[in-house]
């Protein structure tokens, strides 16, 4: 016999004897209560696509999972959105910086911010090139400060995500809402990426 064997007769194989293991317990069932398995009413030959039992089989084989509360899903969805927001907070400042400043400009901008931040005389004392760099730095800081999601923004994105998680079955509405809400939140964060000066 060569393996693997196709059309292996599982039923015949299971009927063969195995090595019986001593049971280390005593039957605690009353003998009269041991039931007989009687499949005589089960029609093995007539199962068809339209039969009642196959309809039940199709309906019951994948039962609805136990429902999770929407509150729990909202928490999970909020955590997911917050994570994505944090990812943005990590990456976007770097991307903005590289787009807005050369290395020399950025180094200069840091010096200017340290020296003139909060002071009203920067316009009078800075040279024109420095003024440009300084203003770019101020804009950069404003944009970077707006990157983290606010609570409202998290709620806006997590609510539709929670709905999708609750019933992920080709529901276009929550998915469209999520895409829209996420786009509403994210797109402004990309504006500085395209700022040239």
């Amino acid at each position, binding site marked *: 016999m060569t*393996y*693997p*064997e*196709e*059309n*292996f*007769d*599982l*039923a015949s*194989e*299971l*009927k*063969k*004897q*195995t*090595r*019986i*293991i001593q*049971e280390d*317990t*005593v*039957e*605690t*069932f009353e*003998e009269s209560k*041991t*039931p007989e*398995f*009687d*499949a005589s*009413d*089960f029609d*093995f030959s007539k*199962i068809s*696509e339209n039969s009642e*039992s*196959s309809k*039940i*089989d*199709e309906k*019951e*084989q*994948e*039962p609805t999972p*136990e429902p999770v509360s929407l509150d729990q899903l909202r928490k999970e969805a909020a955590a997911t959105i917050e994570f994505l927001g944090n990812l943005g907070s990590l990456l976007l400042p770097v991307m903005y910086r590289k787009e807005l400043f050369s290395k020399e400009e950025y180094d200069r901008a840091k010096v200017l911010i340290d020296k003139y931040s909060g002071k009203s005389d920067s316009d009078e004392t800075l040279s024109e090139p420095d003024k440009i760099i300084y203003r770019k730095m101020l804009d950069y800081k404003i944009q970077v400060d707006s990157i983290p999601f606010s609570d409202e923004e998290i709620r806006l994105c997590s609510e539709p995500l929670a709905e999708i998680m609750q019933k992920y079955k080709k529901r276009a509405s929550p998915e469209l809402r999520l895409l829209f809400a996420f786009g509403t939140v994210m797109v402004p964060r990309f504006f500085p990426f395209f700022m040239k000066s």
Partner: protein
Amino acid sequence: MSNVRMNLVTAIVGGRGVGKTTYLLKLVNDLIESKNQKVLILDTIDHPSYRMVAKIEADMLSGWVKPAVYRLVTSDPDDIIRRVQLHVKNTLVVFEDASKWINKSMQKDVRKMIFDSKQRNNDIIFMFHGFMATPPELFRYVDAVTLFKTGDQPASRKRDMINYVEIEKAWKKVIASKNRYENVTIQIY
């Protein structure tokens, strides 16, 4: 020469409504007609097709010795797997809709149950709705695979199947058949 066979671990893989449950019931029926055998069907949803099978409660497993066919309906698969591992011997154990019982990464207790099947004289049958529902690791441990029509392909588990070529060939034959309930069993080892 001994006529005693090795215990078998089998996966039955097939989509919804292709006859897996009917096939299993026929298997059980044929089995108990030919020899006295303990059979335990583990179910999480009280499947209507098994309603002719008497129920057993989890805490009765430790006192079950005599041949009989029982089903155990539970919402705590991990607890039942532990009890099976502790108390069940000389039994054909069937996991109806096994994806409800076994994680994709396969729990340690399930692995132990498979490895101890010979020592405990248990045959085990796992039933899955498709290849993707079957934990990849399981394909390395089963002795046989019964293939029904599936909605997915064996290629999704190719790297875990030692005899992928033979399994794919058998699956294609099943898929090509006009018979909705077509099935083929491949012995792996």
